[in-house]
């Protein structure tokens, strides 16, 4: 892993099911995340993904790529264009810093409106024994 490495993009279809299941799994019962009529009353064209689901998907993007040895240290995200049903979010990442066993990846998730999420994920990689590896700078 080197600074500047690009992670392969991952496409996430934004289904109604994903939005609702993510909201409920994160115990977020705000009606704008499950009730289209209420969302419209509040000026939104449809339900939209909650920030906790986005946060989880960003974490998953990193752990899926670097594998189960990945230990998440920090996830910092900012939301922009909402994820509405029927859209597709494409997650991209680029390694920003590598220091010993710890690395930071800058991520951006885009949908058809624009940037849904921007931010950074900081993590380390455990070796087989479970201690942080010093060999990440391959």
């Amino acid at each position, binding site marked *: 892993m080197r600074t500047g490495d690009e992670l392969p993009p991952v496409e996430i279809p934004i289904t109604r099911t994903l939005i609702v*299941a993510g909201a409920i799994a*994160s115990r977020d019962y705000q009606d704008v995340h499950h009730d289209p009529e209420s969302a419209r009353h509040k*000026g939104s064209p449809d339900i939209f993904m909650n920030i906790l689901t986005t*946060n989880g998907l960003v974490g*998953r993007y990193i752990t899926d790529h670097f594998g189960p040895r990945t230990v998440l240290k920090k996830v*910092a995200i*900012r939301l922009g264009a909402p994820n509405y049903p029927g859209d597709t979010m494409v997650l991209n990442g680029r390694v920003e810093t590598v220091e010993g066993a710890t690395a930071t990846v800058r991520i951006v998730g885009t949908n058809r409106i624009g940037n849904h999420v921007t931010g950074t994920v900081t993590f380390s990689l455990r070796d087989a024994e479970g201690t942080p590896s010093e060999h990440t700078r391959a």
Partner: protein
Amino acid sequence: MVDDPEAPPAPPEARDPDAPTHPAHDLSTHLKSYEGHPAAVSATGKDPVNLPMIRHWCEALGDTNPAYTGPEAIAPPTMLQAWTMGGLGGLGGLGGPGGPGARGGHTGRAQAYDELLALLDASGCTSVVATDCEQEYLQPLRPGDEITFDTVIESVSDRKTTKLGTGHFVTTRTDVRVGETLVGTHRFRILKYAPAQAKKTPPRPRPVVNRDNAGFWEGVERHRLLIQRCTACAALRFPWLPGCAHCGGPDWDTVEASGEGTVYSYVVMHHPPFPAFDPPYAVVLVELAEGVRIISNLVGTPYDKVRIGMPVRLVFQVYDGELTLPVFRAAEEAAAEEAAV
């Protein structure tokens, strides 16, 4: 908003007559005084960290990381906030006390945050959206861990103009502990804003007033329901018509309805939804005590509780702040209300 004559939506400044009115600058100063105040003190997670909630999360997000299953399972670190959520039973909504949906009633919740949200609501910032989430994971959470958390109001921004509308960013920081050990921190930012294009309920359709029915609408304006009476044969008629259906006589005077009546029949409107109405609702045909029938709405009674034969009483309701219409209430309910006044 629904077209509910019982609870006309009040303009924000009318919601709390006791709330002090601040010019924008004073409001910002007032809002900033909440910085550093606690939003939750030693609050407790509703459930211990547990495998079923972890599994539901992984299924929802399609996360197949083996670290989250099996005897050595840890919770997905990004679930941190989920363990602080009140859910439907508690504070409702997003982010524990630091979340925009927080509405009180949560153990460990401090009053300052409620007050801050109420101030923002009173200033018209009734909508909320989460904008930033910054989490640090210091120790993995494992099934059985019981979390506690403390939240502090870190900052409240000046009034900002955004695409959504103008509002204030509120940033909270939550420390999550298991026992004495700090396991994670969670900084959360919401925008409390006044929606730029608030959806307004379209107005009720206006009556067509012509020379044949003008007297009726003039009566309604004065809160009198007038029935036409043929001066030749004394037959009552409603709705208003140019001539008598019994004898053909063109001359008439009026009788004021007592306001008593019964539901002669009704239909429940489900579809199509007309913009000013909020289906399902009942359209009733009321037989007045005088014997004529009038089509109207029954207010204050759920559509599925309307019954033929139900005694009702006339009331005059103002819609859109200017349109007076004769509608009906269940007689029992109307009587109870009068007794309470």
